[in-house]
Every structure is written in C-alpha cells, then in structure tokens.
C-alpha cells in the first residue's frame, strides 16, 4: 500500500470552490478550507447537508477542480498531478449511483480491475477476494439491480478497494442503510482502518464518527468549525456538563434552579437533569444533591452530536 511519502496523507490549504448555476447567484461551496489528515488516520468530516462535504471529497478525489487554494494526497497535488493521485485513492460516493445495475457484481468489478490496469489473472483473483471479503460471493453472479442497498454499498467498497489504495474517501457510506447493514459496513471500515489505510469519511452520523474516527472536522457552509478528537470536541463543551440524578424532591429542584450557573433543571423520565453553563458549578450541584440525601447521581458529558449541534446550530440538519 503505502509509498515513500512520509508526510500527512491529505493536506488541504485555503481551499475555495465556487459554482455558478445558470441564471442564479454564485454558490460558494468551500470558503478557505484547511485541514490535515495523517497517514493511517480515520478522519471524519461532519456537517449538515450543503456544508461542502461532498465537494471537498470530489476535489480530493480529482473529480472536481478547486477554484483556488491547494490540496495534496500523499504529497501529490490533486489538480496539477491528478494522474499520479488516482492510483493512490479509492472512492465511495454516497447513494445508489455508480454501478451498472444490469450487470453482475463480478462483471462490474472486473471492469474496475481493468480500469486500474490489473493484469487479467491478478484482476480475477482480486475480484474473488473482494467479493469474499464483502460477503458477496454467493450473489456475485446476480445482477446488481437485485441487490439490497447494503449489498450495493459493500460492492462500492469492493470497487474502491480494487487496486488496494492507501487512501480511501468514503462519502456518507452508510446513508440510507438499515441499522444492521450500517453496522456491517462500519465493521468493514473499522477493519480497513486496522490495515493502516488513511480513511477520510464524511458522515451525518455522530455515533459513526465517534466510533470510527480518530479525529473529526466539523464543517458548515463551507467553513471548518473545528478539528479535534471526538473526546476533545466533547470537552470543548465541558462547561456544559450536566448532572443527572434519581429521586430529587421538588424542594431540591427548586434549590438547584435558583443556583447561579445552573441553566435548566428538567425531568428526564424518572430522573432529573441539571444543566450548567459555568465552570465549577458541577461540584456545588453534587454537594447540594448529596446533602439533600440524593445518592444516585451521575455527571455526563455531551455527545458529539450535542457538540455539533451547539457549534453548527440547528440549521436544516438531517441528523
């Protein structure tokens, strides 16, 4: 897989991409995006619809040209050295598109083996191995139009892996999959990450990003909001830590509601959730709960989804 390159797998610097729809104002999809993805890293790109995720992936995959700025994959410029980038990358774009539905999985994959210039014997063996790995061997000679969405996505992944690329771009690979199929695909992506491939994954799914990614970049309206580990992103909102407890009386609830730094006290089923908005308030809340005889107390961190919603706001997201 890997070549002699020892720097970051992906470097994006001040990348701008605009589109000019007919008779409509210019659309700015990416506004000066910069990020780095280390070799062997699973990097998540999280953002709402229209945030610029797919545009960024397509530029990195040499499908689109940037308007300005630069991007490199394993040290090769995606615009000026596209032909040397292409053997290094595999791409899975979201949705049902990208396959010849009237052909079988094997026929589809043989074609991609040829496009990646695999010698015929090696191509056949690689196709067989990938079909096996993706659990498609038994249906390999059925037309793709008879496949479930999950099977199609696994076939897409097999296609992307045909030439054993060191860098994978996966654009919302689990979108539209049922939970079981999504879990299977995540497991495969986890295996690929274990092979020290660099994986750049766009997703809507917070749990997916938390489960798979070493670092996550939040993007909205073509701008990077933050790049951190999922845990560090959670810690960014540590001042919004909350306390949950069972058995709090109305008196205790009233006492805590009046406490400075507590932003809300709400019922959460049989439990009570106390949200804070200032540093250092949690210990005081805990002290008062314990003093009131409440012993079932826990402090929880915000999930990545909550961090994301806080940073992006609740603008038109399908999360």
């Amino acid at each position: 897989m890997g070549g002699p390159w020892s720097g970051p797998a992906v470097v994006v610097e001040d990348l701008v991409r605009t589109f000019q729809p007919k008779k409509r104002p210019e659309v700015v999809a990416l506004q000066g995006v910069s990020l780095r993805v280390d070799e062997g890293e699973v990097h998540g790109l999280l953002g709402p619809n229209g945030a610029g995720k797919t545009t960024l992936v397509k530029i990195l995959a040499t499908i689109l040209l940037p308007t300005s700025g630069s991007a490199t994959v394993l040290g090769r410029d995606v615009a000026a050295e596209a032909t040397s980038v292409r053997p290094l990358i595999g791409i899975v774009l979201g949705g049902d598109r990208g396959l010849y539905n009237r052909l079988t999985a094997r026929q589809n994959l043989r074609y991609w083996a040829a496009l990646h210039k695999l010698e015929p014997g090696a191509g056949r063996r690689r196709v067989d191995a990938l079909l096996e790995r993706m659990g498609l061997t038994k249906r390999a000679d059925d037309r793709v139009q008879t496949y479930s969405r999950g099977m199609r996505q696994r076939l897409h992944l097999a296609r992307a892996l045909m030439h054993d690329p060191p860098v994978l771009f996966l654009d919302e690979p689990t979108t539209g999959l049922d939970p079981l199929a999504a879990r299977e695909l995540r497991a495969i992506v986890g295996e690929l990450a274990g092979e020290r491939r660099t994986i750049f994954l766009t997703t809507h799914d917070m749990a997916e990003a938390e489960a798979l990614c070493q670092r996550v970049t939040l993007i909205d309206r073509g701008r990077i909001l933050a790049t951190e580990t999922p845990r560090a992103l959670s810690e960014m909102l540590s001042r919004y830590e909350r306390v949950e407890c069972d058995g709090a009386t109305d008196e205790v609830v009233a006492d805590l509601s009046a406490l400075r730094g507590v932003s809300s006290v709400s019922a959460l089923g049989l439990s009570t959730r106390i949200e804070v908005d200032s540093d250092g308030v949690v210990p005081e809340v805990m002290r008062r709960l314990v003093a009131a005889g409440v012993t079932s107390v826990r402090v929880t961190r915000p999930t990545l989804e909550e961090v994301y919603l806080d940073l992006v706001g609740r603008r038109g997201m399908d999360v």
Partner: protein
Amino acid sequence: MRALIGAIRLQLQIVVADRGYLNEILTNPFFAVIFLGVVRAAGRRDLTTFAIVAPVLMTLWALSLEISGNVVSADRGVGILELVVATPTRFQTVVFGRVLAVTLLGTVGVVETWLVARIGFGVEVSVHHPGVLAGALAATALAMTGTALVMAGAFVLAGGARTFQNTMNYPIYLLAGVLVPISYLPGWLRPMSRLIFLSWSADLLRDSLQPEPAQDVLRRLSAVLLLGAGGFLIGSIILRLVLHRVRHLGTIGQE
C-alpha cells in the same frame, strides 16, 4: 491495453444485458430493401454495389455515434463517469473500447445485407476480394470508433449534440459517396469527399464485390486509417478539454 480490453468486454456484457443497444443493426435490412428496391425500379443494376454497401456503412456510422453518446450520457446519468475519470485510465480509452465493441458487432450488417439481396431480390452478391472486404471493414470500424470520440466530447458538453448528430448523418452519407457516386456531386464538393474516411471505405467495400482487381488497396486502407486516426486525435483532445472544463464547472456528475 488492459483497460481497452476491459472496456470492450464491459460493452459486450452490456449489449447482452440490454439488446436495445443494437437497434441500428435491426434497421439495416430495411435500408437494404429500400436501396435495392430503388436500384431495381430504376433499372440501374450498375449501382447494385452501392445499394449493398450503403446500409452497411450507414449502420456502422449510426451505431458508432449512437453508442459514443450513450456511453457518456448513460455513465453520467448513473454517476459512473465521475468514478471513471478518477481512475488511472484515460476516459478516451474507455470510450474507444466501448464504441469499438459495438461497431465490430455492427459489421454483421454485411451478412444481413447479403441475405436481403439474395433472398429478397434474388441478387447473387459475390465477394471477389475477401481480403479487401475484411481489411476495409476492420479499418472502417477503427476509423468509425476514432471519429466517434469527437461526438463523445460534444455529448459531455452539450445536450443538443444528439440533434446535431442526427442532422449531420445524411449530408455525410451524400458527401462521402455512400448513397450515390461522388461523380454525381457538384465538382466543387468532390475534393471534400476525400477528407471523409467513409468515401475511401465505401470505394474499398464496393471494389471487394467487383470481379476486377482492386487497385491501390494499401494506399486506400491507409487513407481510411489515417483519417480515422485524425478523428481519434481530434476527439481525444476535445474529450480531454471537455473533461477539464466540466471538472472546472462542477457539472461532470450532472445529466
């Protein structure tokens, strides 16, 4: 070469899965009936070879341009074009291989026309120079495929390319002497005919059916191949420029 073979194989598999790709081959016998009927009605037995060669070349021409457009528009419609351009294989190679596969299948039009002439009109068509026929068909298929790349580029860029292509078919047939002898054309048009590879192909194919020895076969085959190579070169450049443009515009994935 591996990518080219892969593209040819893919197209043959697509044809097996979707026989609609071969509609042009099915229309070939009807053209043969029309042309042979006209020649007979006019009492011009000397033009019989025109009536036999014309449907074959028209089928090949229409088929190659049809498929070149389909390769682009169908791949674009299902999101495959984006993925193909992101592979190490040049898109020109893919188009060339896929068009070549269908164009070679289109040479079956020779057999269709032969059967129509024999069964429908009682005309015994003898191939006096099978080597010339085979060479002319192979060179023509290659030249057709090369020229089709020009149209493939147009299909990426312009939705109206299909209309333009259909409009241009018959003028090309006339200019190339496919339907009527070039000697019937106005004098000032005749030099232009020789810039179209079809005119050389048509002459060679007709000569292969004549008992007289075929003259200058290599030179004329070279003319077909050179003009086809010119089409391929121009088509490749157009396709490369067009792909660069749609990557720039961001319309590569749009139907």
